[in-house]
């Protein structure tokens, strides 16, 4: 991992087309600006991780049979 020190208003370039700027440093929070091409996906890591975790959870063994699910909110009732 590359570790760089930056001050407020300083920037980092990745591959010339991704620009990361340190917008503001306040206490224990850093505001970061990211300029990147449309095809670059930017996500907060913890959100991605929570979706990963939820997907795994969703496929784990459940204690409910499918028959019980079939009775839950059928289309005809809508």
């Amino acid at each position, binding site marked *: 991992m590359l570790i760089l020190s930056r001050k407020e208003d300083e920037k980092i370039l990745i591959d010339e087309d991704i620009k990361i700027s340190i917008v503001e440093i306040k206490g224990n929070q850093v505001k970061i600006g990211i300029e990147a091409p*449309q095809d670059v996906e930017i996500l907060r890591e913890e959100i*991605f991780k929570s*979706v990963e975790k939820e*997907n*795994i959870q969703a496929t784990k063994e459940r204690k409910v049979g499918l028959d019980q699910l079939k009775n839950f*909110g059928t289309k005809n*009732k809508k």
Partner: protein
Amino acid sequence: MYKLEIMTRDFGKVNIDENKIIKFPEGVPGFKKEDEFVLLPLDEDSLFVIMQSIKTPELAFITLEPRNIIKDYEFIISEKTENLLEIDSIKDIILLNIVTIKEKVEDMSINLAAPLVININKNLGKQVILDDNKYPVKYKLENNQAKEMMS
């Protein structure tokens, strides 16, 4: 049209049309290598659709269309996703959200933060992660809503 026999978690052996297989070019979070699924309705009247992996019989998600649960579910589909899924029109798209059930049906939670966006005409899908804190990963049904749906 080719028929394919696959083993499923919930329905045993099932014959599916090869052209019903939906490609997830990026896999799904937590299952990066799972890139082919098929949608199998739980039964004719059910709100639930099982999204079954083609490769892995024991891997299946319980899903439902968000309009059955909440009104005004909305988000922006990025250009990248539009390109990946070859979306030309909003009519191409169906949305499904993954349901997590542990002990009781009425305690289910629905992942509204990461909808499955599927281009039903091109059989391409992606689980889109909405990075805006607008919708929760574990959306719980209101008590009365759950009861109503159980009755």
